[in-house]
């Protein structure tokens, strides 16, 4: 029962979505809309499960004094502050939630992502080596794109005598755009097509019950 019910739900929902796409006549559009609404309801419920799990994990961590447990109260207090202000006063403008979001969540989130620049600089210094011709090619492309995506690339180019008056005064950004438009696009297109075929194959395997790993067990 534990195996066949999820398999049946997957098969029915998957087939309805496929039929709705290829046969745009009743009853498939109505059935399709129903499946989409159910998906939204189930996905919304998953958020509550996530919240409960977050609280459970951190409360357990505090109770058992696990490694770095001191960060857990901060997580719980942060979560409860946002939750209580959101429920009590709403999430619109001029509410405590809106203030906390704009003055705390936004700057902290942006700060965390901004740290990436420092780690990229450090990692590039230690690991980006022209150790063979392929790495050298990657390095050269990276240099050209990095210069071409910012104004200083063309400024440096135009310092070269005659470059500013040449037919390509913005040569560096032109080269960067060419790299993006031609070699990059060709590679990305290949990846996209490969990934799309993989998605189609995996989806069909799931709909027909061949691929069952999403059920959590081995078979």
């Amino acid at each position, binding site marked *: 029962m534990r195996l066949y019910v999820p398999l049946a739900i997957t098969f029915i929902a998957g087939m309805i979505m496929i039929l709705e796409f290829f046969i745009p006549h009743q009853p498939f559009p109505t059935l399709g809309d129903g499946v989409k609404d159910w998906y939204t309801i189930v996905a919304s419920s998953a958020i509550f499960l996530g919240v409960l799990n977050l609280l459970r994990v951190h409360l357990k961590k505090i109770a058992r004094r696990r490694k770095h447990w001191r960060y857990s109260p901060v997580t719980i207090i942060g979560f409860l502050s946002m939750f209580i202000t959101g429920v009590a006063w709403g999430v619109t403008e001029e509410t405590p939630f809106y203030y906390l979001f704009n003055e705390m969540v936004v700057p902290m989130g942006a700060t965390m992502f901004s740290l990436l620049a420092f780690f990229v600089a450090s990692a590039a210094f230690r690991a980006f080596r022209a150790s063979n011709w392929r*790495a050298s090619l990657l390095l050269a492309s990276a240099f050209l794109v990095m210069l071409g995506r910012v104004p200083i690339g063309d400024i440096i180019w135009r310092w070269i005598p005659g470059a500013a008056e040449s037919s390509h005064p913005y040569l560096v950004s032109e080269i960067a755009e060419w790299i993006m438009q031609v070699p990059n696009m060709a590679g990305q297109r290949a990846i996209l097509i490969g990934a799309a075929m993989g998605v189609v194959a995996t989806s069909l395997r799931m709909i027909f019950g061949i691929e069952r790993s999403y059920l959590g067990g081995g078979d």
Partner: protein
Amino acid sequence: MKKLLERIGNVDRRIIFILMALAVIVPLALELTMEMPVGEGPSYDLYEYVEDLPADSRVLMSFDYDPSTKPELQPMARALVTHMMSNDVNIVAMALWPQGATLGQTILSSVSDSLGTEQYQDWVNLGYKTGGQVLIVRLGSSLEAAFPTDLEEVPYGEIPMLSDISTLRDFDLVITLSAGDPGIPAWVMIASDRFGVPVGGGCTAVSAPQFYPYLQEREGERPQMEGLLGGLRGAADYETLIERPGLAAAGMSAQSIAHLVIMVFIVIGNITFFATGRKKRTKGGGR
């Protein structure tokens, strides 16, 4: 000499961090500006498409990002909203990411105040709804079913500007500002490819290369995306095109110097690597 190079090669990463911080802070503090012409390209294509939209056109704008990518995507959002509101284009906002709805509200509200447009007449924020790609498919059959109320819980039927909008097909353009999944690929696959609604967008610089295939135009066919703003440069391009330089244009000088500093680090790293003979030790390795 070799010892000196070895010492440089093993430099404390905190020194790298300090130099990087200075590369960003100094140009911003000195308000350094750099000439930045905008030629033909994905940024210009999006600007041109929005510019050509007639007054009272309807644009669905999806804020599919969170605060971590705000420095890149929020200036784009501000420039796009300013451009559309200045041209009397109506904006229906929504979000596939939970925190995008509030970020969008901040932009819509502040630009609306400065340009004197009216909520519910010229713009509305429908808020966040879970579901990603499936939600977009649902928008294709009914906008009201997906969003029965807006962010401020005003019922869909009571919002004047939504009176003649019922599905995704009623929009003249979809703009998605995307920091990941769900984002641009979902909108392209569903809104553009399935429902035939033009899609444009913006994304972080690091994810821009993967969306270039959507920009390729075949003769007689519409591209999958009308234009793309890639990272802070894309936002700065758009600010330049609408002649309202803002945070992104100001940030380009800092980004320029930061890129140069990273390049100098890479060059020094390679010099020390080869000069100290480390190549032999890593031969056949995965570097």
